[in-house]
Each structure stands twice: as C-alpha cells, then as structure tokens.
C-alpha cells in the first residue's frame, strides 16, 4: 500500500517541493466553501474560546493533543532514519503523560526535549516523494496527495489513543483549540493577502518544506526560487530599455 502510494506520488510531474496545483479550479471552489463556513462559524467560535479560556489553559489543551500525537511523531522520526528524533518524541510522551499530568504541562520541553513534529507526509517526502499535487480538502484545509493520509490520521489520533473512553466532544475541543491557535496566522493572511487562496497554498507548501528539512533547509535553496535574481542587478530604468530591445 505504502509502496503503491510512493510510486504513484513520485511519478507526478511538477517542480520538486514547488507548488503544483493542477486542480486549481475545483480547489478554489472548495476553498471558498470552507472559508464561508470558517468566517461564519469557526472564527467566531475560536475567538470566543480565545476570550473565555485563559491563555495558560489554552496552552494546556494544545499540549494534551500534542502529547497524544507524540507517539506518531516518534514513529515517523524512526521511519525517517532519525533515531534521536524518534527517541526524543517517545521520551517526551513518557515524561509529559506522567509528570506532566496527562500532557497538560509540557515539562519535557523545559528539560530540553523539543517536539520534533514529524508526520507520515514528511516521512514520504524523506523517502523521495518530493512532488505532489496540491489539494484543498474541505474543512481540513490545504494539503497534498502525499500529506492527505497523515492529515486525516491526525484527526483520528485522539479516538485511537483513548479507545473506549473517547467521546466526540474531545474532537470538538481539538478542532476549536487548533483553530484558535491559528487565529494569528489567518489574521496575517487577511491583512496581507489580496488572493487568499494563492497566499494559503504557497504558505502551506513553504511551511511543509521547512518541516521536511526540520527547520534548516539548505542555504542555497533560499535563492533557488529566484533564478532571475541577477537580471535585476541593473537599475530598473536601464532594465526597461534592455527589455524594449528584446
């Protein structure tokens, strides 16, 4: 199954790690529908949560869900050939689940064990699936075919970990807490973007690349996106003349 997905994704055309959006028309429709619901329901609820729930408790709730996902992150660390990262995540789960009262307090971070934030989409990227079609999944947000399984799995984690003690309200708290945590990011988007769809898509792609490289992409990659850089060395008035000569 994994091999099929790997070969299916790796044969796709498009720039490595670059934006590849062949379904733009349908993606835009799904984005608009999701955004309408987000503006009408999710943002007011998230803002209400942000006002009512104290910051410390908000952080605690985020910590609990991050802790639940720590086992998956650890396994993906090992799958990516990073045993230190995998071990860090699993140690975090043990410390935070016990001394951190079920993950409410992130004591592991204070002890220098930072969340490695790995997932199966990143694992596939490390295994060679660098190119993948962009899809905007309704109510789930931006993703790619490569990242979709891990995005769906992410939502199912609380149910899988909690078993019989799981209640649907846990997912409601997870969704509202996650949305509230994104209020600043979507605020930046609303303040900056003229075309929020294009802005969201490119921000998602870049953020994923950052995660795939564990926050340290190769330095030359910073400039690879601007191949024409030297073409702008001349003063722009002179460049205009050059362009007219072409």
């Amino acid at each position, binding site marked *: 199954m994994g091999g099929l997905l790997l070969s299916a994704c790796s044969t796709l055309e498009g720039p490595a790690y670059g*934006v590849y959006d062949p379904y733009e028309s349908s993606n835009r429709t799904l984005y608009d529908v999701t955004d309408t619901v987000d503006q009408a329901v999710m943002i007011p609820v998230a803002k209400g949560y942000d006002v009512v729930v104290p910051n410390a408790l908000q952080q605690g709730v985020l910590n609990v869900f991050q802790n639940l996902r720590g086992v998956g992150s650890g396994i993906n660390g090992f799958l990516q050939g990073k045993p230190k990262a995998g071990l860090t995540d699993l140690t975090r789960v043990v410390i935070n689940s016990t001394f951190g009262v079920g993950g409410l307090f992130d004591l592991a971070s204070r002890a220098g064990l930072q969340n490695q934030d790995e997932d199966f989409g990143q694992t596939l990227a490390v295994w060679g699936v660098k190119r993948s079609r962009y899809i905007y999944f309704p109510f789930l947000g931006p993703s790619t075919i490569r990242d979709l399984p891990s995005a769906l799995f992410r939502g199912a984690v609380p149910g899988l970990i909690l078993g019989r003690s799981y209640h649907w309200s846990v997912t409601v708290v997870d969704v509202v807490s996650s949305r509230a945590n994104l209020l600043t990011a979507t605020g*930046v988007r609303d*303040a*900056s*973007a*003229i*075309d929020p*769809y*294009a*802005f969201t*898509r*490119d*921000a998602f792609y*870049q*953020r994923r*690349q*950052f*995660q795939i490289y564990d*926050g340290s*992409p190769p*330095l*030359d990659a*910073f*400039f690879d*996106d*601007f191949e*024409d*850089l*030297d073409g*702008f*060395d001349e*003063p*722009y*008035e002179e*460049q*205009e003349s050059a*362009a007219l000569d072409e």
Partner: protein
Amino acid sequence: MVDSIGVESQDRLSPGVSRVRVFLFIGLICLSVVWIGSARAESSPAAIAQGTVDQFHAALNAAIEIDKHRDRESALLPVVQGLFDVPRIAAISLGRTWRKLDGGQKDEFVQLLTQLIAATYAGRFSSASDLEFDVEEVAAVKQGHVVRTQLRRDEGKDVSLDYLLHDGRIFNVIADGVSDLSLRRADYNSIIKNEGYVQLTVYVRAKLTQARDLP
C-alpha cells in the same frame, strides 16, 4: 653621528631589556595584524549583510516603543528605503509584468510597495512586549548572503527569521520557513493573471489603507 648614537644606546641596553623590546615589537605586529584583520572583516560582504540586519532590528526595537501606527510607519519608512532592495522586490513580485511597465509606472509601484512594507512592519511590531533578535549565522551563498536569526519574545514561541540579501540589501524575509517574497509573488501574479496589473495596484492601495487603519 646618528648611527653611532644608535649603536651606543643599543650597546648600553642589557640583554633582558633588549628581549622585552623584541617581544613588544612582535606584539605590536600581532596587534596590527589582528586590527587590520578585524577592520577588513568589518567591511567584508558578510559583515555588511549582518550590519544591515542589525540596523533593521534596531529600527524595529525603536519603532515598537512608538504608540501610533502612523508614527511607527513614518519611522520605518526611511529604514525600508535604505536597507531593503525594494526595486528588486517589486521586479520579482511582478515577474514578466515588470518588464512591460514604463519608468514612471515602475517608480510609482516601488514607492507604493515601500510604503506597504513599512506599514506592514509597523502593524506587526506594535505591542510593547520585549523582543530580542539573535543572529545565529551569516552565510555566503551563490547569489548573496543569508542572515539567520531568531526572534525571541516574552509571549509566544520564538520565530525563525532568515534574511536574504543581495549586494548588502534585504530583498526577502523568511519567517518560520514562509518566504514573504514568494507569497507576494504568488499573490500578485494571481491577481495580474485574472484581473490585470491596474487592478492589482488598486488592491495594493487598499491593503495600504487597511494597514494604516490599525491603531
């Protein structure tokens, strides 16, 4: 005469004093080498790149103390004009459209973008909470320099800020992996493709007004 005085005076010095003089001389040469080396390092492209970023951080730290958005923007406008390569940012953001514009249109767009960048930073760096910028690495790459920094805040997580410089001026800022210039290019090109350049300038002006409406 002079030679004889010199010889005489040297001859009168004890061997210990002479050795001290030699050590002092060598020490002076070493100090000179270090001084010349540091002077060269200060003017190296990497040092210039870091100096540019340091100046920008200092300007942000000073601007954050200013209450009104409009005043912060006014304080940051000359900083953006001096430290950012706005014509390059405009050219990359507009792509092929840039080459089709006449000189007046280019000037106008660069001016508009300069104001928008200053207004955006004035909006983002508005709370009085303590900020600290740590420069972690200055690296030369094939087309310029990358200055990697961490923004440490009293509240919230640290933010990784990477500055891309070409010829000593900033043309891109990458926050936690998200490139400001790439987003701007995607955003502007989408509008140009669907609605044209003139409509883009209308939207950019609207964004500037929106940014200035902030407290």
